[in-house]
């Protein structure tokens, strides 16, 4: 919290003074599409899964259909975003996310280390979220298919789907806490709504990113001025 109130570091100012773009429209669309689908699937899934809820709501056939169609809508929206969205940017995101460098490993051990646009915790959260989404889709597909063709009933399909639910709820709680409540990270929320974050905050928490961004802008400036 205090860091925000501190004056900006006496350093060369960036071309854009106060704010810096963190997420493009494509990234934000992907995030909010996934978030809405996740909440709808979680709500209907809980009704299907928890006896206390399922006996209150009942109407299993309807709830099951809603759950299935939301999953289909999620898959279609994902494909649409991958087709019409900024794929180059998404590929960059993936490259950054799967790179766990020395600084990240130090950061994960609780030491101070400069971080890129994603800190090591955000990278792990993103890697798990993507892996869980793929496994949800895979196990969900076999839950669906197994009911229609007994040859595709596997012993662990339901267990995997359930275990993913528990693990995802764990991730979600941590994510919501850090995005909405935790004093030093909640400023990042604007990055996922409007797209930009406070530059002074970014410089403190994502130093390597701000530096790289500055170099990028400087070199672009050089190129255009010659």
């Amino acid at each position: 919290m205090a860091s925000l109130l501190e004056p900006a570091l006496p350093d060369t100012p960036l071309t854009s003074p106060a704010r810096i773009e963190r997420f493009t429209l494509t990234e934000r669309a992907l995030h909010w599409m996934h978030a809405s689908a996740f909440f709808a699937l979680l709500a209907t899934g809980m009704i299907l899964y928890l006896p206390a809820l399922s006996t209150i709501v009942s109407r299993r056939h309807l709830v099951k259909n809603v759950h299935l169609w939301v999953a289909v809508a999620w898959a279609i929206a994902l494909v649409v975003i991958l087709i019409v969205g900024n794929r180059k940017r998404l590929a960059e995101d993936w490259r950054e996310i799967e790179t766990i460098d020395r600084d990240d490993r130090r950061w994960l051990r609780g030491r101070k280390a400069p971080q890129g646009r994603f800190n090591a915790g955000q990278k792990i959260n993103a890697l798990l979220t993507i892996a869980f989404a793929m496994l949800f889709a895979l196990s969900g597909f076999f839950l669906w298919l197994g009911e229609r063709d007994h040859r595709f009933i596997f012993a662990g399909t339901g267990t995997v789907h359930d275990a993913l639910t528990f693990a995802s709820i764990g991730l979600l709680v941590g994510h919501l806490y850090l995005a909405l409540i935790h004093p030093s990270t909640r400023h990042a929320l604007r990055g996922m709504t409007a797209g930009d974050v406070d530059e002074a905050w970014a410089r403190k928490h994502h130093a390597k990113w701000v530096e790289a961004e500055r170099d990028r802008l400087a070199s672009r400036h050089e190129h255009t001025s010659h």
Partner: protein
Amino acid sequence: MDDRTIGRAGFLGVLGLGAAGLFLAKDATGLLDRAVPQSVANIVPSAGWRIYTIGSSMPTFDPATYRLEVTGLVGSPASYTLADLKAMPRADQVSDFHCVTGWSVSDVRWAGVRLADVLERAGAKSNVAALNFVSAETPYEDSLTLEQALLPDVMLAYEMDGGPISRPHGAPVRLVMPQMYGYKSVKWVNRIELGTVAQPGYWEQNGYDADAWLGKSNGLSS
């Protein structure tokens, strides 16, 4: 291992574990079944029973007013209290329960009456060829052919695992048809309609097989 492969390896590792879990989690499920206390499993199912209801509310059983009616092709419509059913010859069995959605429960202990005894007591006519079991959970119902209903491990159960059948499991009386997927084992049975043709049940009307034999039904080709 360079910086980039660490994240990718972790990612692929999680994916691989999850995919392997589809086939390997059976032992984990069995372990959970033993490790998780029943009181917890009733709230958060880990292994074993799941409770599926389709109506707008779960039926409540009142011992004072409960009657099992037997209608259709009978001399005269019959009506039995739970005590009447318990006065009929008692049958005990241990059988596995398999749900079409993929979960199973092994070695469930059931006690109840065989349908042959119910049919005889009710005075079923000789042309009866199908039984339609109607649940108190409207509009749930399902049918068996006479031949299926008379299989030696089919029963109308009033006890499960040593006690009266609980409300979520179909109190006071449910059908038990272990050789078919669980949707055939109608819960909260309050009427048996005797007829000549098996009626399509609730899930049959939603595309599931009427002859729901374990491992032989609900094939895409059929």
